[in-house]
C-alpha cells in the first residue's frame, strides 16, 4: 500500500504553493493538489479535486483542506473516486507538513494519525 498526499485549497496559489514546501521534506511522496473553482476563482471544484485524486500515483490518499466547503467537495470527489481518500480535519499547512515528513520517513498510518491528532482544529467538535 502506497500513500500519497492531496492538497485542497480555496486559493489556487495556496494549493500550488504548499506542495513545494512538502516536497522539500518528502521528495518520494506523491503529492497532487486542487485549488480554486473551475474558473480559477476563490472556491473549490469537485471536478478539479477528482482530477487531482486520479493524477496521484499512490494507492491511498491523505487529504488536507482549508475551509469546510472544501471538505464537502473533497468528500464528494472521494465518493466518486476509485481510490480511498482519507480526509483529515487538521490545520492545512502544518498538518500536511507533518504527514509528508512522516510518510517520507516510512512511518505507518496508525502512528501518523496519532501524530496528526493534536493538529485537529476543524470538523465536528
Amino acid at each position, binding site marked *: 500500500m502506497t500513500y500519497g498526499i492531496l492538497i485542497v485549497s480555496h486559493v489556487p496559489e495556496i494549493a500550488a504553493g504548499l506542495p513545494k514546501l512538502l516536497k522539500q521534506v518528502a521528495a518520494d511522496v506523491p503529492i497532487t493538489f486542487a485549488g480554486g*473553482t*473551475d*474558473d480559477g*476563482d*476563490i*472556491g*473549490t*471544484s*469537485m*471536478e478539479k479535486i477528482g482530477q487531482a485524486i486520479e493524477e496521484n500515483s499512490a494507492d491511498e490518499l491523505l487529504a488536507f483542506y482549508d*475551509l*469546510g*466547503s472544501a471538505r*464537502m*467537495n473533497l*468528500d*464528494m470527489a472521494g465518493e466518486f473516486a476509485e481510490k480511498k481518500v482519507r480526509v483529515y480535519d487538521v490545520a492545512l499547512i502544518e498538518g500536511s507538513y507533518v504527514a509528508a515528513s512522516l510518510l517520507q520517513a516510512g512511518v505507518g498510518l496508525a502512528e501518523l494519525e496519532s501524530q496528526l491528532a493534536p493538529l485537529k482544529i476543524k*470538523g*465536528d467538535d
Partner: protein
Amino acid sequence: MELTTELLDKWMAIFAEKIEANKAYLSDLDTPIGDGDHGNNMARGMSAVEEALQTKKPADLTSALKLVAMSLISKVGGASGPLYGTAFLEMAKLSNSETDLARLTEAALLGIKKRGGAEPGDKTMVDVWSAVVPALAKGNLTNDLIQEAVESTKPMQAKKGRASYLGERSIGHLDPGSVSSGYLFTALLEAEA
C-alpha cells in the same frame, strides 16, 4: 404531491428567476457573516441548471434531477454547491422508486445534513429544510411557514459554515443559505399552484 419532470422544470425556472432577482440581496446577506458571494454563487448555479435542462431535455425525472444536481455541484463554487447538489442527487437516487415530494425532500434533507454535518439550530439552510419537509408531508406548507423558518435563523449563533468563525457576532443576521432555501420552497408552492 408527486414530483414530475414538468413540475420540476417549472419549479426550477421559478427558483432561477427568484435567485436572479435577489442575487444582490443574497450576496449582501452573505457579507457581514460570510464572504459575500452567495447570490452570485446561486445565480451562476441556477443559470447552469436552466441551460442544462433546456438544452439536454432529460427524458425522465431521475435524469432531470441528476442534471440539476450536477449543474449545481459543478457551477456554484461555494458551500451551497455541494449542499444543494447533494439534495438533488439524493432526490434523483430515490426517484427511481418514489416520486412523492415529501419523501424526496426528506431524503434531500438527510443528504444535506450528512454532507455538511449541520443540525437544526446551527444557522444554516438545514433550519429551513427541517421546517419545510414535515410540513410538505402533512400537506400544510405555506409561505408563512417558510418565512418563519427563514426568520428563525436571525437570532441564532452559527455553528457551521463560514459564519461560525464569527462566534457571537453571527447573531442578528439572516443566514443567506436559509433565505435562498426559502426561495426554493416558495418557488415550489408557486409551481404547484
